[in-house]
């Protein structure tokens, strides 16, 4: 009996930890963007809606799936079994302290796609779950969400 009670107690404690961890992941997502980089207005509006939707879903970032409205409105791209946000990053010039520099290889290793367009400007495709990591990177001057473009044949 003691063993059963002990096992049950452990199970309840573990479940509590898991829930607390989930709640912690969601609750640390902040509407406020870091002050270390400038974010475009499009990115700000997206971030506002993204954080709001993640919190409303009650799910962790990893398990969160954007609504179709979110996908359509912000042009989120389906890549495999996840959605990515596309955009541009302009980086600061390199500093002596390497920890303050933008490290594209580290981000690529995490699963964020980066392509250097011209010196100092990268295009990115970032899984939604990794956005909090991306926005807190050092060495970024500006972060912009990609703009939606349409074909220009007349259909009026």
């Amino acid at each position: 009996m003691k063993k059963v009670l002990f096992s049950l107690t452990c199970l309840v404690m573990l479940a509590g930890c898991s829930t607390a961890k989930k709640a912690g992941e969601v609750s640390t997502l902040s509407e406020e963007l870091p002050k270390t980089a400038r974010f475009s207005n499009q990115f700000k509006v997206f971030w506002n809606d993204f954080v709001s939707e993640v919190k409303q879903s009650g799910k962790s970032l990893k398990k969160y799936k954007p609504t179709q409205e979110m996908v359509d409105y912000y042009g989120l791209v389906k890549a495999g079994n996840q959605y990515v946000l596309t955009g541009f990053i302009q980086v600061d010039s390199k500093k002596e302290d390497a920890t303050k520099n933008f490290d594209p290889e580290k981000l690529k290793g995490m699963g964020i796609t980066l392509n250097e367009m011209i010196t100092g400007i990268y295009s990115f495709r970032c899984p939604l779950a990794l956005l909090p990591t991306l926005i807190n990177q050092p060495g970024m001057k500006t972060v912009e969400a990609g703009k939606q473009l349409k074909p220009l044949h007349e259909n009026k």
Partner: protein
Amino acid sequence: MRRFFITVAAAVMALGGVMAQGKMSSLAATLVTEKKMAVADNGMLHGLSRMENNREMVDCYVHFNSSVDESILSKYDVVLHAKYDKLTMVTAAVPVDMMEALSNDPAIKYVEAGTPLKFEMSKARPMSLAQLVVDGGGQLSQSYLGRGVVLGIVDTEIQLNHPNFYDTNHQNYRIKRYWNQNSTGGTHPQNFDYGAEYTSESAIIGQKYDFRQPSSGHATHVLGIAAGACMENPNYGIARETELVMVSAVQTMYNSSSTSLSDGIKYIVDYANSVGKPCVVNVSMGGFLGPHDGTSTECKVIDELATRPGVLICGSASNSGDVKEHAKLVLQDLDTVAKTFLTYSESAKIAMVDVWGEVNKQFAIQVVVYNRDTKEFVCQTDTVTFDLPKDVYTYNLKQSSSGVNVTVSIAKSINPDNNRGNYLITTNLSQDIPDRHMVGILVYGKNAGEVNMWSTEDYCTFTNYGMKRDGWTDGSTDMTLGEPMGVANGAISVGSYTSYAQYPSQKVGGRSSFSSMGPTLDGRIKPDICAPGQTLVSSIPDCSSLSSSRAEEVVVNGNKYYYGYMQGTSMSSPYCAGVMATWLEADPTLDQAKVKEIFRNTAIIDDQIGKDVPNSKVGYGKLNAYEGLLWVLGLNASVQNPESPKVLAVYPNPTDGELNIGFAASDSKVNIVITDLSGKTIYNNIMSDVQPGDNINIDLSDVLPGAYIVKVAGESLNDTFKLIRK
């Protein structure tokens, strides 16, 4: 008595015919009459009718007296093709035997048979004298077809195995690289870690399409205009011997992404560099978010890539030349507020408005809902300024009594690239805005100067609802160039002119009404040039959703392939890109600065396009493919009056006996006189009028070998050419 009755019967029939024909276009009435009289040409009425489900049908515009009522159409077995949001008109297939009855319906204002479309690229090519270039006519010793040049497009909706993308013998496949940014399997291109790259003919053709459901076939049409090589059909493209690169851009629900565009342009430029060839990139896509002053990141990428010699990047100016998607609010002297309204079409419930101020000037924003009857703001947001702590402010403007329910968010920032204040306003109508209520945008700021804003959704425009006296600013069709291709310094921004008139009111040779106008926010004149973009026939996929726009088909190796018509700056840009490829063949070191200089010196300017150039409607004027190429080659075109617009071509010269005179502008009372060196006239002809694209053929086979003078003079034209008869 009998004669009297016959006369009356004839009169009644004629009168009845006239009455019935009052609500039909002349062409429609003709078709109906000929059907009744069983007059047909090989079973078709003027080539306009076709059999559908054993019924003879004609494509028509059906105009309604008030709103469109589809039940009326069903009554007459009419097959609806398309509705037009702002017009009480539809396009439809009408049974010929029901056309008169339909026109007599009280709900119908007018039935207009669609006019026959000629093979449009065959008419468009001569209009900018591109035909001379591809034929090697005039002073050219050879044809110029883009040999040794890479031509790439970043686009969507391609059918990769269309014969237009082979050589003219259907042997050599010309697409050498294909990057589908949407593919999740396969090998990424080097330096780009997404999508799949295909490098062999079998792998590329094996993909066939980049779309899974019927679509318009935009990329198929665009690439066909620039470089189509299927000569079995007159609608082949310009640079038919270019090496091709296709990038299928990322496809989101309705659109693509600017990062996708930038990556795609770089991919094409890098490939061309890797094979040591000059390149032209065409982008027929655009949007409205951005400062419109050439400082956006997308513009920076284009500017940087276009600085390389032998790299030309062409893009569409956009199609909002007749839509008030821009507004300029001015605050000066004692002004403290300027304001405008936002209108929404039925399809647009969410609208974004991108607002940009002058450099280093502060201003504030407020969004309101205004009641037109009480002249009051029934709901409003706070006044948002740049120094407020949050990045985004969200409001729910609600008034239960009226039913107003609008969610507004306002994001703010000072852009460090241009030091302009920028607000991004998003409005979301949860339900239709109640009658007599309007969403307004107020701008505050003493001496803030000019504040410009652009609406980003189709059919969301700015207006003052006629309330200018109350201080409301109307929208504007100026500064409606798209981002980035319409405004980037490094891009050749291409507007559109009409090479085929669909409506009687359209002027062939005039600027297309939809072609967006400049200037840019920093005051630069754009577009740079205009090219044919209304209406062009080019390749479309076999599963095109625009099957009703099919104009032609060809059979190659036992398979059918299709051509259809589209219009837009999407079409004028690849036309220009094809011409650029021919110029690059002649000089692989050309850059965009040199090209713009060539435009300045050779563009066609006439009464249709206006002579006060460069300007923000047409840039330098209409693209002159032939004279531009002569300029690249350093050849003098002719003994010409330097004041005369360069709108004529006389070819071949020297001639074996057959002479052509091609016109790229209209004129009247045109006199062509050919004399020998003693002044003796050997040919003299006066034409009452000529139109752009007209080609006069003169038989000189009986003329002795020697030197002659050709004079062409009209109300505007006045040119003289030396001619050699071999």
